[in-house]
């Protein structure tokens, strides 16, 4: 039971970090594409989604394992 509870807590705390991180990366991309000018809206939105998705895939395991280590340390 303790193990399961810990896992849930880790998942919650990790999500609070990697979701903003990937969302931030996506927004940053959108802003860069918008400020750069010349990109059609589909490219800007499509790019934002793609960068956001890849950022999520990259940040999720890194942050989850780090949070897990911290939780175990406590």
């Amino acid at each position: 039971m303790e193990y399961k509870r810990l896992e849930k807590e880790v998942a919650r705390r990790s999500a609070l970090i990697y979701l903003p991180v990937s969302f931030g990366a996506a927004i940053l991309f959108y802003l860069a594409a918008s400020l750069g000018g010349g990109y059609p809206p589909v490219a800007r939105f499509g790019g934002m989604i793609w960068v956001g998705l890849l950022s999520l895939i990259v940040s999720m395991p890194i942050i989850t394992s780090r949070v897990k280590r911290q939780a175990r340390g406590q």
Partner: protein
Amino acid sequence: MNESTSNLTLPISGMTCASCVSHVEGALKELPGVDHVIVNLATNKANLVYDPKQAGLADMQRAIEDVGYSVPTTELTLDVRGMTCASCVAHVENALKELHGVKEAVVNLGLGTARVTYIPGLITTSTMKRAVREVGYEASERSEGADALDRERQAREEEIKRQGRNLIIAGAIGLIVMIGTFYEMLGPLKAFVPEFLSYKWVIGLLTTPIVFGPGRQFFTNSWRGLRHGVTDMNLLYATGIGAAYGIAVINTLFPKAGFGGEGATFFESAALLTAFIILGRWLEALTRGRTSEAIRKLMKLQPKIARIVRDGKEEEIPADEVEIGDLILVRPGEGIPVDGAVAEGYSAVDESMLTGESLPVEKKAGDNVIGGTLNKTGAFKFTATRVGKDTALAQIIKLVEDAQASKAPIQKLADWVAGHFILGVHMLAVLVFIFWFFFGYQLFFDPNSRFILSPYSLGEIGVFGFSLLLSVTVLVISCPCAVGLATPSAMMAGTGKAAQHGVLFKGAEAIENTSKLQTIVFDKTGTLTKGEPSVTDVVINDQLVVISKSDHWILNTDHLLHLAAIAEKNSEHPLGEAIVLGAEARGLVIGEAERFNSIPGHGVEAQVAGSAVLLGNRKLMRERHVDFTLLMAKAEALEADGKTVMFVAIGGQAAGLIAVADTLKEYTIEAIQRLHKLGLETAMITGDNRRTAEAIARQVGIDRVHAEVLPQDKAEEVKKLQALGKKVTMVGDGVNDAPALAQADVGMAIGSGTDVAKETGDVILIKDDIRDVVVALEVAKATMRKVKQNLFWAFIYNGLGIPLGAGLFYPFISLIISPELAGLLMAISSITVTLNTLLLKGFKPTIRRDGRPQRGAGESKSRFSPVAASSD
């Protein structure tokens, strides 16, 4: 492993790549009390050391399931007899549920059955049956229940069938999609293809069932992993297929959306990418099982039925129910069910499957037989001495399985790389996308550019479509499947191949270390030599005429040996016994001496056929004033060869010399010659005096001699060689040489017979044939060669593929690689590695390649029967 910890091997399903390995390892390591975890992709097993007080099987299962994999369970139905009421049901259920490895047990009183859900490999059916019997009921396995081997094969066949079905669907429809896509380029063949197949919406409709049918596994598996924060190969495939299909749908439904319009509907990319990935999975499932064929062959050796003799009647029972002490009858052509000792009868038994010995071994009363071997000619009865998991075959299988579940140092590195690879690839995919989106497209895009090996033009693809295409291709082409398979597949094939030749490696590390050896150190007695003295030379004084009471004759070697043997018949000295055995080997009948007197520390004197025979050392002859001047040069030459010389006087005159020495084993010289051919240095450690040791070394061709070494100091000598920077193996009998075997980089225990579980050392040579050291080295080298070749192919593929996929050469050649071609290359890389490994199946050690054993080459002139004779 300390006393409070246990070792466990868990089967795991759902792993497809090296990153899966690191996920499962990580999940298990996080459990409290688990301190050592090795997950093997090729065997789909996790080996762990854990503290049962802190972590249970349920925790491990949960941890594995939480990261998206599972511990497969299987079901078995037992017929239970003797149950009469509900409490019986509870008894049987509880007895089964308490067993380690049983997940669930449901007993049906009406049917008289117990349905058991258990983890295969952790428990056997015989243990379950025993547990039921112990609480007072009878249990037998339902006939439809398949054994563990069949289940494993069944699971593999199901996977092959599933992926084969997917491949037929994806391949057939994918082919139609491709024909439709390239309709305009078909030329005269267009007449055979309906035009509507080239309509984008038709191609889209055809692609959809591929992506959501056979391709669905990638989406569901990657989602399962993502929910738990893990990424694996499935995610690479899912993002690749999903992105190609998504763009194609958008460009078909909304051509003005800016993703490249109708010219960039890559439905065929999504369809063929799916088909190629599934082709890779199917071929992998097909070939992966074959790398473990050797262990399967070993498992198949176990006969299922034993014919026991009880109260004079023959009775057939399941082999796993044979008990120690049972008398078993074996007829010609039948397998021997368990280990035992022949009680009556005579036959020849083929033991090649376990020992690699090509010739059948004769068996008579008192000889041991090994379960799993094949009776060839006669019928015999034997008494079971080892059954179940204690049989030689069970021990060998366990040892090989453990070795296959272990990891070589080189594999740990490859796994680490592959485990971190997926994240690195996704990062690279972001960078590739950003580069081509913000810079590359504007700088280098050419509307006439094409895909490699395709006449298909990129057309008016937009900046997003182009950047996404390259980003997706990087994801697909970077799959490190081949890296993950490279080492374990070769290790499995190598350990299995070695086992077929009677060489057991205790782990993958042992194979890797064996392949790097530079110096082979042999223990002398019992390893290079037989460890028992025997007559090597008989020298006579040919000027002597023996005159007895009744006769007189000219002495020859047989006469001398005969007289000496009669004189020594009552002696208990090892040298005396050697003389008696030497005479018997020549067919001489040893009679009784008329008078016998032992002279302690010197020799014996006896009266034989009227002649006074004096036999002993030089000092004895000097004391008795017997002049041996004539034979002294020969005596000294024999002593210089490390032999012990016995002086024989008849009637007070010097009659001859008998030399006794520890003789070489049959193939010692051949083995050393072969080791030298492999470029290895050989050394010998012995407690014998330097002169004897050097004589043996000269005879055999050993390079380095460490003489007068006490048993406890052998490890120290090995350490000294290691200090010189050499990778050293110690070859010994495994019991007396245990410290030296442990100190060496690789300890090889030779001639252990089949009681392999008790042996120390990293490598066990079942037969007492020193040439198996060469076999071990050759198999290890061949295996590591395969590992390196596999890693080379795997890394070279990624090393070349990633820059190509990322568009590094695009500015110069205006060609990019399509996702489907990337998928095909990925499949080819995995298949290349697996097929390369399968080449090991044809490997034969040189001693087997050269045909029949070369007795002549290895045979020492000092072998027992052909005693060298000379006269002076």
